[in-house]
């Protein structure tokens, strides 16, 4: 019987949760890298035994870890994230220009086809690629040429946090940066353009429709429809049907259109999930109720998914990389919270149950559907 592996990054280590296809009984492994901040772990779609993990802390900096046996053992690989050439400067909080400085890796995105190729989204915002299993990294520096001097950090830092790869076209890469916006390359990362038309950020930037400066929180794409992108922005849930060429709002009847993660059902490209958060000044669910919202219509019409999720006195957050789906039949949905719970649904969100309740604050959740 097929199964699922859930990779959980937390403030104090990583955990690997595994179950068979029923997804009822879970084996918990960890903490791996105990005491370290694990911003992100992700498995290679081309080789389920190949995992990458971003390990960091304020004392000893950034390490990239790699596993070739599905997370049983790990080895540190390359951590030399050197910006290409003279890094230059970007906008700082006080309006001055500030030198680009590497802080950490927020997101690792393995290639859909090659286990040795992996992309890293870093803070200060830049995109790196390794083609040797993480041993060496090269910046795709043209990205920072797209008005990089105008980018400025959001409250969480100026991070490149989302990387979307088109499985049918290795030249198509879409990334998102806080607080700069979405950017797309159609030539494997050699050249880039901003893809923020249609976004409006009334309260966040002086020109609400500026080309860059939008605080995109996450992007999602169904692999069968790479031109359809879904976005959770700081405020607003958005959709593009032309690869980011133009965006339109699909927030519809959501109780709040502020939030962090967004995900697409594994088998239904028009079924989308978000986790509404009350506001940018109150980072917890509206009314103390943790509700995942699902749209089966590609947006606009949303239904709350509540069965098994806490519906009173709940004041956790779900961070941008902390929601994922598996590709079993029926599609599984997973959310991790800043309160240390990982909730799972084995029926596309209709019902939920916690896999674990007392982990450190969850930073990221990713899945692997195992043969």
């Amino acid at each position, binding site marked *: 019987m097929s199964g699922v592996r859930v990779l959980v990054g937390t403030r104090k280590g990583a955990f690997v949760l595994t179950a068979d296809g029923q997804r009822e009984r879970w084996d918990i492994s960890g903490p791996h*890298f105990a005491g370290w901040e694990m911003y992100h772990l992700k498995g290679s779609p081309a080789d389920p035994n190949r995992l990458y993990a971003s390990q960091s802390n304020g*004392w*000893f*900096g950034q*390490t990239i870890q790699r596993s070739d046996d599905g997370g049983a053992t790990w080895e540190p690989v390359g951590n030399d994230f050197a910006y290409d050439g003279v890094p230059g400067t970007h906008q700082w909080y006080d309006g001055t220009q500030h030198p680009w400085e590497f802080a950490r890796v927020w997101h690792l995105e393995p290639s859909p086809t090659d286990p040795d190729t992996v992309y890293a989204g870093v803070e200060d915002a830049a995109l790196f690629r390794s083609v040797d299993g993480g041993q060496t990294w090269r910046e795709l520096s043209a990205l920072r040429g797209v008005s990089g001097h105008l980018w400025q950090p959001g409250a969480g830092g100026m991070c490149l946090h989302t990387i979307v790869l088109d499985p049918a076209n290795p030249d198509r890469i879409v990334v998102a940066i806080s607080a700069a916006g979405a950017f797309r390359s159609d030539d494997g990362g050699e050249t880039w353009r901003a893809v923020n038309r249609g976004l409006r950020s009334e309260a966040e930037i002086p020109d609400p429709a500026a080309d860059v400066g939008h605080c995109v929180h996450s992007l999602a794409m169904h692999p069968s429809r790479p031109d359809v992108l879904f976005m959770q922005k700081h405020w607003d849930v958005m959709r593009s049907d032309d690869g980011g060429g133009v965006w339109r709002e699909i927030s519809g009847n959501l109780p709040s259109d502020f939030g962090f993660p967004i995900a697409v059902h594994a088998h239904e490209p028009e079924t989308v999930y978000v986790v509404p958060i009350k506001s940018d000044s109150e980072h917890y669910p509206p009314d103390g109720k943790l509700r995942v919202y699902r749209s089966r219509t590609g947006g606009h019409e949303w239904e709350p998914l509540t069965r098994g999720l806490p519906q009173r006195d709940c004041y956790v957050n779900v961070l941008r990389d902390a929601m994922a789906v598996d590709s079993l039949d029926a599609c599984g949905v997973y959310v991790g919270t800043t309160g240390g719970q990982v909730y799972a649904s084995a029926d596309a969100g209709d019902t939920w149950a916690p896999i674990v309740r007392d982990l450190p604050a969850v930073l990221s959740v990713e899945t692997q559907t195992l043969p």
Partner: protein
Amino acid sequence: MIRVVLPPHLRTLASAEREVALRVEGPATQRSVLDALEAAYPPLRGAIRDRVTRRRRPLVRFFACAEDLSHEPPDAPLPEAVATGAEPFLVVGAMAGG
């Protein structure tokens, strides 16, 4: 041989014991000891000194012979007791609680 004591996180990262022994060419300085340490344990590159500037990371401290050597120049000679191996050179994660 020069003895270097590592903090717990770096022992794990380097797959090393609490104390490692290093052969250092030339005068024993912070730079020469850390160069030898990173050569022997490549995962420690970037964990003690910044990859680009080669300066000590802000929350790392260097102690030896009951003194804080963190602010000494990287090419200053280390105490004789460290150079002879009588005393260890301690790499320490700074207190940063709250």
